[in-house]
Protein backbone atom coordinates (compact mmCIF):
# COMPACT_ATOMS: atom_id res chain seq x y z
CA UNK A 1 0.00 0.00 0.00
CA UNK A 2 1.11 3.57 -0.64
CA UNK A 3 -0.13 4.64 2.80
CA UNK A 4 -0.89 3.04 6.12
CA UNK A 5 -2.83 4.51 9.00
CA UNK A 6 -0.51 3.90 11.92
CA UNK A 7 -0.81 6.93 14.18
CA UNK A 8 -3.59 8.25 16.41
CA UNK A 9 -3.47 11.17 18.88
CA UNK A 10 -5.65 12.04 21.85
CA UNK A 11 -5.35 15.30 23.81
CA UNK A 12 -6.29 14.75 27.41
CA UNK A 13 -6.59 16.44 30.78
CA UNK A 14 -5.27 13.27 32.46
CA UNK A 15 -2.73 11.92 30.05
CA UNK A 16 -0.82 9.63 32.39
CA UNK A 17 -3.81 7.82 33.86
CA UNK A 18 -5.51 7.60 30.48
CA UNK A 19 -2.42 5.92 29.05
CA UNK A 20 -2.53 3.41 31.91
CA UNK A 21 -6.14 2.66 31.00
CA UNK A 22 -5.20 1.70 27.44
CA UNK A 23 -2.24 -0.32 28.68
CA UNK A 24 -4.34 -2.16 31.24
CA UNK A 25 -7.48 -2.86 29.21
CA UNK A 26 -6.11 -3.34 25.71
CA UNK A 27 -2.59 -4.51 26.53
CA UNK A 28 -0.93 -1.71 24.55
CA UNK A 29 2.79 -1.24 25.18
CA UNK A 30 4.69 1.98 25.85
CA UNK A 31 7.85 3.21 24.10
CA UNK A 32 11.18 1.80 25.25
CA UNK A 33 12.53 5.33 25.65
CA UNK A 34 9.63 7.33 27.09
CA UNK A 35 9.54 11.13 27.13
CA UNK A 36 7.16 11.64 30.03
CA UNK A 37 6.99 15.42 29.87
CA UNK A 38 5.71 15.53 26.30
CA UNK A 39 3.26 12.65 26.01
CA UNK A 40 2.75 8.94 26.58
CA UNK A 41 2.94 6.85 23.42
CA UNK A 42 1.35 3.40 23.38
CA UNK A 43 1.29 0.86 20.58
CA UNK A 44 -0.37 -2.36 19.48
CA UNK A 45 2.68 -3.18 17.36
CA UNK A 46 1.21 -1.56 14.24
CA UNK A 47 -0.53 1.65 15.30
CA UNK A 48 1.01 4.09 17.78
CA UNK A 49 -1.25 6.32 19.85
CA UNK A 50 0.14 9.54 21.33
CA UNK A 51 -1.70 10.51 24.50
CA UNK A 52 -0.86 14.18 24.76
CA UNK A 53 -1.37 16.52 27.71
CA UNK A 54 -3.93 19.16 26.80
CA UNK A 55 -2.04 22.38 26.32
CA UNK A 56 -3.44 25.88 26.69
CA UNK A 57 -5.72 27.00 23.90
CA UNK A 58 -6.42 23.40 22.84
CA UNK A 59 -9.42 21.17 23.32
CA UNK A 60 -9.31 17.70 24.84
CA UNK A 61 -10.49 14.56 23.11
CA UNK A 62 -9.65 12.45 20.11
CA UNK A 63 -7.51 14.84 18.06
CA UNK A 64 -6.08 13.50 14.80
CA UNK A 65 -4.62 10.51 12.99
CA UNK A 66 -1.48 9.97 10.95
CA UNK A 67 -0.51 8.22 7.76
CA UNK A 68 2.84 6.73 6.95
CA UNK A 69 3.42 7.05 3.21
CA UNK A 70 6.00 5.60 0.88
CA UNK A 71 6.98 9.02 -0.41
CA UNK A 72 5.95 12.38 1.02
CA UNK A 73 6.75 14.28 -2.15
CA UNK A 74 4.43 11.98 -4.08
CA UNK A 75 1.72 12.54 -1.43
CA UNK A 76 2.26 16.29 -1.67
CA UNK A 77 1.92 16.16 -5.43
CA UNK A 78 -1.28 14.08 -5.27
CA UNK A 79 -2.79 16.46 -2.67
CA UNK A 80 -2.02 19.43 -4.92
CA UNK A 81 -3.66 17.68 -7.87
CA UNK A 82 -6.76 16.87 -5.84
CA UNK A 83 -7.09 20.35 -4.33
CA UNK A 84 -4.33 22.94 -4.82
CA UNK A 85 -5.61 25.03 -1.88
CA UNK A 86 -4.63 22.34 0.64
CA UNK A 87 -1.27 23.06 2.24
CA UNK A 88 1.22 20.86 4.05
CA UNK A 89 3.05 22.19 7.08
CA UNK A 90 6.46 20.95 8.20
CA UNK A 91 6.50 20.11 11.90
CA UNK A 92 9.06 20.71 14.65
CA UNK A 93 11.57 17.79 14.71
CA UNK A 94 10.84 16.78 18.31
CA UNK A 95 7.82 14.72 17.29
CA UNK A 96 8.20 10.92 17.07
CA UNK A 97 5.80 10.52 14.13
CA UNK A 98 4.82 13.68 12.31
CA UNK A 99 7.10 15.16 9.69
CA UNK A 100 4.27 17.13 8.13
CA UNK A 101 0.68 17.96 8.98
CA UNK A 102 -2.07 18.52 6.46
CA UNK A 103 -5.83 18.37 6.20
CA UNK A 104 -8.56 16.97 3.99
CA UNK A 105 -11.10 19.14 2.10
CA UNK A 106 -13.15 19.54 5.31
CA UNK A 107 -10.05 20.54 7.35
CA UNK A 108 -9.83 17.28 9.27
CA UNK A 109 -6.19 17.23 10.34
CA UNK A 110 -3.76 14.36 9.79
CA UNK A 111 -0.02 13.89 10.19
CA UNK A 112 2.21 12.58 7.43
CA UNK A 113 5.44 10.71 7.75
CA UNK A 114 7.81 8.35 6.00
CA UNK A 115 9.17 5.33 7.83
CA UNK A 116 12.72 6.73 7.84
CA UNK A 117 11.51 9.95 9.53
CA UNK A 118 10.01 8.20 12.55
CA UNK A 119 11.36 7.89 16.06
CA UNK A 120 10.59 6.13 19.34
CA UNK A 121 7.73 3.66 19.20
CA UNK A 122 7.27 4.23 15.48
CA UNK A 123 10.79 3.07 14.64
CA UNK A 124 11.03 0.17 17.10
CA UNK A 125 10.41 -3.45 16.18
CA UNK A 126 7.51 -4.41 18.33
CA UNK A 127 5.46 -7.51 18.96
CA UNK A 128 1.81 -7.20 18.14
CA UNK A 129 -0.58 -7.16 21.07
CA UNK A 130 -3.62 -9.42 21.40
CA UNK A 131 -6.08 -6.53 21.18
CA UNK A 132 -5.48 -4.23 18.26
CA UNK A 133 -6.69 -0.98 16.77
CA UNK A 134 -9.10 -1.61 13.93
CA UNK A 135 -10.33 1.83 12.85
CA UNK A 136 -10.29 5.58 13.29
CA UNK A 137 -13.59 7.37 12.66
CA UNK A 138 -14.18 11.03 11.91
CA UNK A 139 -17.48 12.82 11.38
CA UNK A 140 -17.48 15.45 8.67
CA UNK A 141 -19.80 17.56 6.55
CA UNK A 142 -18.74 16.40 3.10
CA UNK A 143 -18.08 12.74 3.73
CA UNK A 144 -18.17 11.66 0.09
CA UNK A 145 -15.69 14.33 -1.01
CA UNK A 146 -13.34 13.49 1.87
CA UNK A 147 -13.58 9.76 1.08
CA UNK A 148 -12.59 10.54 -2.51
CA UNK A 149 -9.64 12.52 -1.17
CA UNK A 150 -8.32 9.66 0.96
CA UNK A 151 -8.92 7.17 -1.82
CA UNK A 152 -7.28 9.20 -4.60
CA UNK A 153 -4.38 10.67 -2.65
CA UNK A 154 -3.48 7.77 -0.37
CA UNK A 155 -4.79 4.75 -2.33
CA UNK A 156 -7.00 3.69 0.57
CA UNK A 157 -9.57 1.16 -0.67
CA UNK A 158 -13.27 1.91 -0.34
CA UNK A 159 -14.90 -1.08 1.37
CA UNK A 160 -18.52 0.05 1.65
CA UNK A 161 -20.99 -2.79 1.43
CA UNK A 162 -24.41 -1.27 2.14
CA UNK A 163 -26.15 1.14 -0.21
CA UNK A 164 -28.20 2.80 2.56
CA UNK A 165 -25.18 3.60 4.76
CA UNK A 166 -24.29 7.33 4.43
CA UNK A 167 -20.76 6.70 5.73
CA UNK A 168 -17.58 5.73 3.89
CA UNK A 169 -15.03 3.15 4.99
CA UNK A 170 -11.53 3.12 3.58
CA UNK A 171 -8.92 0.49 4.29
CA UNK A 172 -5.12 0.36 4.16
CA UNK A 173 -5.41 -3.44 4.22
CA UNK A 174 -5.48 -3.53 7.99
CA UNK A 175 -6.73 -0.30 9.55
CA UNK A 176 -9.97 1.32 8.43
CA UNK A 177 -10.57 5.05 8.19
CA UNK A 178 -14.30 5.61 8.71
CA UNK A 179 -15.51 8.88 7.22
CA UNK A 180 -18.92 9.44 8.82
CA UNK A 181 -21.49 11.90 7.54
CA UNK A 182 -22.07 14.77 10.03
CA UNK A 183 -25.62 16.03 9.92
CA UNK A 184 -27.12 18.66 12.24
CA UNK A 185 -30.43 16.78 12.26
CA UNK A 186 -28.71 13.85 14.02
CA UNK A 187 -28.42 16.01 17.13
CA UNK A 188 -32.06 16.71 17.83
CA UNK A 189 -32.00 14.99 21.22
CA UNK A 190 -28.54 16.04 22.36
CA UNK A 191 -25.93 18.76 22.12
CA UNK A 192 -24.47 19.02 18.62
CA UNK A 193 -21.02 17.47 18.52
CA UNK A 194 -18.27 19.36 16.82
CA UNK A 195 -16.99 18.20 13.48
CA UNK A 196 -13.90 16.02 13.50
CA UNK A 197 -12.61 12.81 15.07
CA UNK A 198 -15.44 10.68 16.45
CA UNK A 199 -14.15 7.40 17.84
CA UNK A 200 -11.50 4.72 17.66
CA UNK A 201 -12.07 1.02 17.21
CA UNK A 202 -10.40 -2.11 18.54
CA UNK A 203 -10.56 -5.69 17.38
CA UNK A 204 -10.56 -8.03 20.35
CA UNK A 205 -10.44 -11.79 20.78
CA UNK A 206 -13.76 -11.82 22.65
CA UNK A 207 -16.22 -9.10 23.62
CA UNK A 208 -17.16 -11.08 26.72
CA UNK A 209 -13.50 -11.21 27.78
CA UNK A 210 -13.18 -7.47 27.22
CA UNK A 211 -16.26 -6.81 29.37
CA UNK A 212 -14.91 -9.10 32.09
CA UNK A 213 -11.52 -7.37 31.99
CA UNK A 214 -13.14 -3.93 32.21
CA UNK A 215 -15.18 -5.04 35.22
CA UNK A 216 -12.11 -6.47 36.90
CA UNK A 217 -10.00 -3.43 36.04
CA UNK A 218 -12.47 -0.98 37.57
CA UNK A 219 -12.71 -3.20 40.64
CA UNK A 220 -8.94 -3.24 41.04
CA UNK A 221 -8.47 0.43 40.29
CA UNK A 222 -11.54 2.67 40.38
CA UNK A 223 -9.63 5.44 38.59
CA UNK A 224 -9.66 3.25 35.48
CA UNK A 225 -13.31 3.36 34.69
CA UNK A 226 -15.15 3.63 31.44
CA UNK A 227 -17.97 6.19 31.31
CA UNK A 228 -21.53 4.83 31.64
CA UNK A 229 -23.34 5.01 28.31
CA UNK A 230 -27.01 5.22 27.41
CA UNK A 231 -28.44 6.74 30.59
CA UNK A 232 -31.20 9.31 30.33
CA UNK A 233 -32.83 10.54 27.13
CA UNK A 234 -29.75 12.39 25.92
CA UNK A 235 -27.43 9.52 26.84
CA UNK A 236 -29.64 7.19 24.79
CA UNK A 237 -29.54 9.61 21.85
CA UNK A 238 -25.75 9.84 22.00
CA UNK A 239 -25.37 6.09 22.24
CA UNK A 240 -27.83 5.61 19.38
CA UNK A 241 -25.74 7.75 17.08
CA UNK A 242 -22.58 5.89 18.11
CA UNK A 243 -24.32 2.54 17.57
CA UNK A 244 -25.44 3.57 14.09
CA UNK A 245 -21.88 2.97 12.86
CA UNK A 246 -21.86 -0.68 11.83
CA UNK A 247 -18.21 -1.34 12.67
CA UNK A 248 -18.70 -1.91 16.39
CA UNK A 249 -20.56 -4.53 18.41
CA UNK A 250 -19.64 -3.21 21.88
CA UNK A 251 -19.42 0.42 22.90
CA UNK A 252 -17.38 1.92 25.72
CA UNK A 253 -15.26 4.99 26.50
CA UNK A 254 -11.88 5.70 28.02
CA UNK A 255 -11.69 7.48 31.37
CA UNK A 256 -12.34 10.88 29.75
CA UNK A 257 -15.24 9.86 27.56
CA UNK A 258 -13.50 9.24 24.23
CA UNK A 259 -15.64 6.72 22.35
CA UNK A 260 -14.18 3.28 21.76
CA UNK A 261 -15.92 0.74 19.56
CA UNK A 262 -14.99 -2.91 19.83
CA UNK A 263 -15.64 -5.90 17.64
CA UNK A 264 -14.42 -9.47 17.48
Amino acid at each position, binding site marked *: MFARLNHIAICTDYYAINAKFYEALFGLKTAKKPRPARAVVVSDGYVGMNIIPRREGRCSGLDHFGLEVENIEEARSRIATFDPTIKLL*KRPPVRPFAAYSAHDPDTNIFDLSEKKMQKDIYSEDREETRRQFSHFALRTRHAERCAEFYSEVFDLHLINNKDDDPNFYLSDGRMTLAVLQWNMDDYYGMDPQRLGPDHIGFKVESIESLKDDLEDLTGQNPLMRSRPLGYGD*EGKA*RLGLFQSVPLNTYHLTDIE*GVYIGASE
Partner: protein
Amino acid sequence: MFAKINHMAIISNQYPFLQKYYQAVFGLTTSGKNDFESASVVSDGNLGLNIIPRRDGYVGGLDHFGMVVDSIDIVEDRMRGAYDGAGCVKRPAIRPFAAYSGHDPDGNVFDLAEKDSKNLRDVYTEETKNLKNCTFSRFAIRTPNAEKCAEFYSEVFELRLANRGEGDSNYHLTDGKMTLSIMPWSVDIFAGMSIKRPGPDHIGFTVNNLDAFRAEEKRIGEKNTFLASRRLGGSEESEVRRTLFARNAFGSYQTADPDGNWIDIVQGQD
Protein backbone atom coordinates in the same frame (compact mmCIF):
# COMPACT_ATOMS: atom_id res chain seq x y z
CA MET B 1 -30.43 44.88 17.26
CA PHE B 2 -32.09 41.83 15.71
CA ALA B 3 -29.67 39.49 17.51
CA LYS B 4 -27.73 39.68 20.75
CA ILE B 5 -24.87 37.37 21.74
CA ASN B 6 -25.70 36.42 25.29
CA HIS B 7 -24.54 32.84 25.73
CA MET B 8 -21.27 30.90 25.64
CA ALA B 9 -20.48 27.32 26.55
CA ILE B 10 -17.38 25.51 27.74
CA ILE B 11 -17.18 21.73 28.11
CA SER B 12 -15.02 20.62 31.01
CA ASN B 13 -13.90 17.52 32.88
CA GLN B 14 -14.02 19.59 36.07
CA TYR B 15 -17.06 21.78 35.50
CA PRO B 16 -17.89 22.80 39.11
CA PHE B 17 -14.29 23.76 39.60
CA LEU B 18 -14.24 25.94 36.55
CA GLN B 19 -17.39 27.66 37.79
CA LYS B 20 -15.54 28.55 41.01
CA TYR B 21 -12.66 29.96 38.96
CA TYR B 22 -14.90 32.28 36.94
CA GLN B 23 -16.76 33.31 40.08
CA ALA B 24 -13.55 34.02 42.01
CA VAL B 25 -11.41 35.66 39.33
CA PHE B 26 -14.05 37.47 37.25
CA GLY B 27 -16.79 37.95 39.85
CA LEU B 28 -19.41 36.16 37.75
CA THR B 29 -22.51 35.05 39.62
CA THR B 30 -25.07 32.26 39.45
CA SER B 31 -28.82 32.55 39.45
CA GLY B 32 -29.45 30.44 42.53
CA LYS B 33 -31.84 28.30 40.49
CA ASN B 34 -29.09 26.69 38.47
CA ASP B 35 -29.71 23.03 37.61
CA PHE B 36 -26.23 21.96 38.70
CA GLU B 37 -26.95 18.36 37.69
CA SER B 38 -26.87 19.50 34.06
CA ALA B 39 -24.25 22.26 34.08
CA SER B 40 -22.96 25.28 35.96
CA VAL B 41 -24.19 28.60 34.64
CA VAL B 42 -22.54 31.90 35.55
CA SER B 43 -23.24 35.39 34.29
CA ASP B 44 -21.71 38.85 34.10
CA GLY B 45 -25.20 40.37 34.20
CA ASN B 46 -25.45 40.44 30.39
CA LEU B 47 -24.11 37.14 29.10
CA GLY B 48 -24.40 33.63 30.53
CA LEU B 49 -21.58 31.11 30.43
CA ASN B 50 -22.70 27.47 30.64
CA ILE B 51 -19.93 25.23 31.95
CA ILE B 52 -21.02 21.79 30.86
CA PRO B 53 -19.70 18.46 32.17
CA ARG B 54 -17.85 16.68 29.41
CA ARG B 55 -20.16 13.91 28.27
CA ASP B 56 -19.21 10.77 26.40
CA GLY B 57 -18.06 11.43 22.86
CA TYR B 58 -17.56 15.18 23.23
CA VAL B 59 -14.37 17.21 23.23
CA GLY B 60 -13.45 19.42 26.17
CA GLY B 61 -12.84 23.14 25.70
CA LEU B 62 -14.55 26.25 24.46
CA ASP B 63 -17.54 24.81 22.60
CA HIS B 64 -20.08 27.25 21.19
CA PHE B 65 -21.88 30.55 21.62
CA GLY B 66 -25.53 31.54 21.51
CA MET B 67 -27.72 34.40 20.35
CA VAL B 68 -31.15 35.60 21.32
CA VAL B 69 -33.02 36.83 18.25
CA ASP B 70 -36.25 38.65 17.46
CA SER B 71 -37.55 35.78 15.34
CA ILE B 72 -36.22 32.30 14.60
CA ASP B 73 -38.57 32.09 11.59
CA ILE B 74 -36.78 35.07 10.06
CA VAL B 75 -33.40 33.45 10.74
CA GLU B 76 -34.53 30.26 8.98
CA ASP B 77 -35.88 32.27 6.04
CA ARG B 78 -32.62 34.15 5.67
CA MET B 79 -30.52 30.98 5.90
CA ARG B 80 -32.60 29.08 3.35
CA GLY B 81 -31.27 29.29 -0.15
CA ALA B 82 -28.54 31.85 0.38
CA TYR B 83 -26.70 29.68 2.88
CA ASP B 84 -27.39 26.07 1.98
CA GLY B 85 -24.33 24.99 3.92
CA ALA B 86 -25.90 26.28 7.13
CA GLY B 87 -28.75 24.74 9.14
CA CYS B 88 -30.84 24.65 12.33
CA VAL B 89 -32.29 21.94 14.56
CA LYS B 90 -34.85 22.25 17.38
CA ARG B 91 -33.54 21.30 20.84
CA PRO B 92 -35.03 19.45 23.84
CA ALA B 93 -36.87 21.80 26.20
CA ILE B 94 -34.72 21.27 29.33
CA ARG B 95 -32.00 23.75 28.39
CA PRO B 96 -31.94 27.16 30.08
CA PHE B 97 -30.99 28.88 26.84
CA ALA B 98 -31.15 26.98 23.57
CA ALA B 99 -34.42 26.48 21.68
CA TYR B 100 -32.56 25.74 18.45
CA SER B 101 -29.00 24.97 17.49
CA GLY B 102 -27.61 26.02 14.16
CA HIS B 103 -24.36 26.15 12.30
CA ASP B 104 -22.70 28.57 9.93
CA PRO B 105 -21.45 27.64 6.43
CA ASP B 106 -18.28 26.12 7.93
CA GLY B 107 -20.14 24.02 10.51
CA ASN B 108 -19.41 26.22 13.54
CA VAL B 109 -22.24 25.55 15.98
CA PHE B 110 -24.33 28.18 17.79
CA ASP B 111 -27.48 28.13 19.91
CA LEU B 112 -30.55 30.25 19.24
CA ALA B 113 -33.41 31.44 21.41
CA GLU B 114 -36.15 33.94 20.81
CA LYS B 115 -36.50 36.97 23.05
CA ASP B 116 -39.18 36.25 25.67
CA SER B 117 -39.25 32.55 24.75
CA LYS B 118 -40.18 29.99 27.39
CA ASN B 119 -36.83 28.26 26.93
CA LEU B 120 -35.00 31.12 28.60
CA ARG B 121 -34.41 30.40 32.29
CA ASP B 122 -31.87 30.85 35.08
CA VAL B 123 -29.34 33.61 34.43
CA TYR B 124 -30.94 34.27 31.04
CA THR B 125 -34.10 35.70 32.61
CA GLU B 126 -32.99 36.79 36.07
CA GLU B 127 -31.08 39.83 37.09
CA THR B 128 -27.62 38.77 38.18
CA LYS B 129 -24.92 40.84 39.80
CA ASN B 130 -21.52 41.64 38.42
CA LEU B 131 -19.23 41.67 41.44
CA LYS B 132 -15.89 42.67 39.93
CA ASN B 133 -16.81 44.77 36.90
CA CYS B 134 -15.41 42.15 34.53
CA THR B 135 -17.64 41.78 31.49
CA PHE B 136 -17.53 39.40 28.57
CA SER B 137 -16.59 41.28 25.43
CA ARG B 138 -15.56 38.77 22.79
CA PHE B 139 -16.04 35.26 21.38
CA ALA B 140 -13.50 34.30 18.73
CA ILE B 141 -13.72 31.50 16.17
CA ARG B 142 -11.04 30.31 13.77
CA THR B 143 -12.52 28.93 10.57
CA PRO B 144 -11.39 28.13 6.99
CA ASN B 145 -13.86 30.38 5.15
CA ALA B 146 -13.77 33.41 7.43
CA GLU B 147 -15.08 35.94 4.93
CA LYS B 148 -18.08 33.79 4.00
CA CYS B 149 -18.88 33.13 7.67
CA ALA B 150 -18.57 36.84 8.53
CA GLU B 151 -21.00 37.62 5.71
CA PHE B 152 -23.35 34.95 7.11
CA TYR B 153 -23.44 36.45 10.61
CA SER B 154 -23.80 39.93 9.16
CA GLU B 155 -26.67 39.11 6.78
CA VAL B 156 -28.60 36.56 8.83
CA PHE B 157 -28.18 38.11 12.28
CA GLU B 158 -27.55 41.74 11.36
CA LEU B 159 -24.34 41.82 13.38
CA ARG B 160 -22.48 44.91 12.33
CA LEU B 161 -19.06 44.50 10.74
CA ALA B 162 -16.62 46.62 12.73
CA ASN B 163 -13.65 48.40 11.24
CA ARG B 164 -10.43 46.46 11.09
CA GLY B 165 -7.01 47.73 11.97
CA GLU B 166 -4.33 47.83 9.32
CA GLY B 167 -3.01 44.33 8.61
CA ASP B 168 -5.79 42.64 10.59
CA SER B 169 -6.97 39.59 8.62
CA ASN B 170 -9.80 38.87 11.06
CA TYR B 171 -13.44 39.92 10.81
CA HIS B 172 -15.09 41.48 13.85
CA LEU B 173 -18.87 41.64 14.15
CA THR B 174 -20.68 43.41 16.95
CA ASP B 175 -24.17 43.37 18.45
CA GLY B 176 -23.39 46.71 20.05
CA LYS B 177 -21.87 45.14 23.14
CA MET B 178 -20.27 41.78 22.35
CA THR B 179 -17.84 41.14 19.50
CA LEU B 180 -17.85 37.95 17.46
CA SER B 181 -14.42 37.63 15.83
CA ILE B 182 -14.10 35.36 12.81
CA MET B 183 -10.46 34.56 12.21
CA PRO B 184 -9.13 32.71 9.16
CA TRP B 185 -7.90 29.15 9.75
CA SER B 186 -5.06 27.81 7.69
CA VAL B 187 -2.65 25.03 8.55
CA ASP B 188 0.39 27.27 8.09
CA ILE B 189 -0.74 29.56 10.93
CA PHE B 190 0.39 26.77 13.26
CA ALA B 191 4.04 26.57 12.26
CA GLY B 192 6.11 25.55 15.28
CA MET B 193 3.21 24.12 17.27
CA SER B 194 0.51 21.45 17.17
CA ILE B 195 -2.26 22.15 14.68
CA LYS B 196 -5.44 23.47 16.30
CA ARG B 197 -8.60 22.28 14.63
CA PRO B 198 -11.00 24.95 13.34
CA GLY B 199 -13.63 26.16 15.80
CA PRO B 200 -13.90 28.31 18.93
CA ASP B 201 -10.54 29.88 19.77
CA HIS B 202 -10.81 32.19 22.76
CA ILE B 203 -13.05 34.44 24.80
CA GLY B 204 -12.44 38.01 25.88
CA PHE B 205 -13.24 40.06 28.97
CA THR B 206 -13.10 43.79 29.52
CA VAL B 207 -11.97 44.86 32.98
CA ASN B 208 -12.04 48.28 34.59
CA ASN B 209 -8.47 48.21 35.80
CA LEU B 210 -6.01 45.74 34.30
CA ASP B 211 -3.38 46.10 37.03
CA ALA B 212 -5.98 45.55 39.73
CA PHE B 213 -7.33 42.54 37.82
CA ARG B 214 -3.89 40.97 37.50
CA ALA B 215 -3.18 41.53 41.20
CA GLU B 216 -6.49 39.88 42.10
CA GLU B 217 -5.88 36.95 39.70
CA LYS B 218 -2.47 36.42 41.33
CA ARG B 219 -3.85 36.69 44.87
CA ILE B 220 -6.55 34.10 44.20
CA GLY B 221 -4.14 31.67 42.51
CA GLU B 222 -1.73 31.89 45.43
CA LYS B 223 -4.49 31.53 48.01
CA ASN B 224 -5.97 28.47 46.27
CA THR B 225 -3.75 26.91 43.61
CA PHE B 226 -6.76 25.01 42.21
CA LEU B 227 -8.10 28.39 41.11
CA ALA B 228 -4.84 29.54 39.52
CA SER B 229 -4.89 30.57 35.87
CA ARG B 230 -2.77 28.48 33.51
CA ARG B 231 0.58 30.00 32.71
CA LEU B 232 1.16 30.89 29.06
CA GLY B 233 4.60 30.54 27.51
CA GLY B 234 7.60 28.71 28.89
CA SER B 235 8.84 26.10 26.44
CA GLU B 236 9.61 26.89 22.81
CA GLU B 237 6.27 25.57 21.50
CA SER B 238 4.39 27.20 24.31
CA GLU B 239 5.89 30.56 23.33
CA VAL B 240 4.73 30.00 19.74
CA ARG B 241 1.19 29.38 21.03
CA ARG B 242 1.31 32.41 23.28
CA THR B 243 2.55 34.63 20.47
CA LEU B 244 -0.18 33.41 18.08
CA PHE B 245 -2.82 34.15 20.70
CA ALA B 246 -1.37 37.60 21.52
CA ARG B 247 -1.18 38.51 17.84
CA ASN B 248 -4.93 38.00 17.45
CA ALA B 249 -5.99 39.43 20.80
CA PHE B 250 -7.61 42.81 21.47
CA GLY B 251 -6.16 43.18 24.93
CA SER B 252 -2.68 43.72 26.31
CA TYR B 253 -2.89 40.73 28.65
CA GLN B 254 -3.73 37.10 27.89
CA THR B 255 -4.32 34.29 30.34
CA ALA B 256 -6.02 30.88 30.48
CA ASP B 257 -8.47 29.25 32.87
CA PRO B 258 -7.44 26.10 34.80
CA ASP B 259 -8.52 23.92 31.84
CA GLY B 260 -6.38 25.95 29.43
CA ASN B 261 -9.14 27.89 27.65
CA TRP B 262 -7.63 31.08 26.31
CA ILE B 263 -8.88 34.37 27.77
CA ASP B 264 -8.01 37.80 26.37
CA ILE B 265 -8.21 40.70 28.82
CA VAL B 266 -8.94 44.21 27.59
CA GLN B 267 -8.50 47.30 29.71
CA GLY B 268 -11.76 49.22 29.67
CA GLN B 269 -12.49 52.65 30.97
CA ASP B 270 -11.75 53.06 34.69
